[in-house]
């Protein structure tokens, strides 16, 4: 699952090193990338659990891609909102909290012309995304199973 971490590196490059003074447009693009890193990590984790991971130099199978793409942003938002409850397992709760914050930040960065993130704010969000990814990697097998069911299973009315 290195792609999501590569995306965070992309965000870091957009805002530059300690002496860099990135434009707001670079900062806003970085915020969007930071959110996408976390969303991608979630989708990959689900696809890997259902279909199985593919090798480092292999291409994902059609089934893997289908599961990966079955999760949309809105569904993820709705499902993860349930884990904001204080009684939720710690790692899932922390992941869900950062997911909500990062998704909202991304909506501002991408769709609100007045929104201008600065470098320091982006650096904070990169830290938050790193933490979110670590928390998702640490959920238990049973917790992950519950999350996967909530994300991909659509109940039908019979």
């Amino acid at each position, binding site marked *: 699952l290195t792609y999501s971490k590569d995306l965070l590196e992309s965000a870091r490059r957009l805002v530059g090193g300690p002496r860099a003074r990135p434009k707001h447009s670079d900062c806003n693009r970085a915020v969007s990338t930071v959110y996408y890193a976390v969303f991608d990590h979630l989708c990959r984790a689900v696809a890997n659990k259902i279909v199985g991971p593919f090798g480092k130099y292999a291409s994902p199978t059609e089934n893997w891609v289908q599961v990966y793409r079955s999760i949309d942003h809105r569904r993820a938002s709705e499902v993860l909102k349930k884990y904001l409850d204080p009684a939720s397992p710690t790692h899932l709760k922390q992941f869900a909290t950062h997911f*909500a914050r990062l*998704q909202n930040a991304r909506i*501002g960065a991408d769709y609100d012309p007045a929104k201008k993130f600065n470098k320091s704010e982006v650096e904070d969000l990169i830290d938050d995304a790193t933490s979110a990814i670590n928390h998702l990697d640490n959920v238990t097998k049973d917790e992950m199973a519950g999350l996967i069911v909530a994300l991909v299973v659509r109940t039908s009315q019979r």
Partner: protein
Amino acid sequence: MTLPSSPSEEVLLAIAWRAVRASYTADQLEGAKIELRNSVHSTFHVDDGSHSGGLLVEVWLIHPNNDHLRDADATADATGLMIQEIYALGYKDALMLLYHGYPDTPSRHRQAA
């Protein structure tokens, strides 16, 4: 009793400060202030990547004198406390999300350089 459509700014600020003070030390909060932004009733449906409805409050903790707190778990904890409290008031669809703000001042850039 019917709830007002959203809590007053005073109530939201009190919730935010309680959560922040529970998650950070007084030293970390020295000189900090809280700004509430984009307090809107939102049913956001742009490109299906969005908030699904209810009150959305961005709580910006502005650190004029501090560098990064670098504590993602504390940020999540404070956010969780705010959400817990606003749910308890009866606003079940509400979200209060904490962000850290750093004024983009020239002196800050000089310090970094």
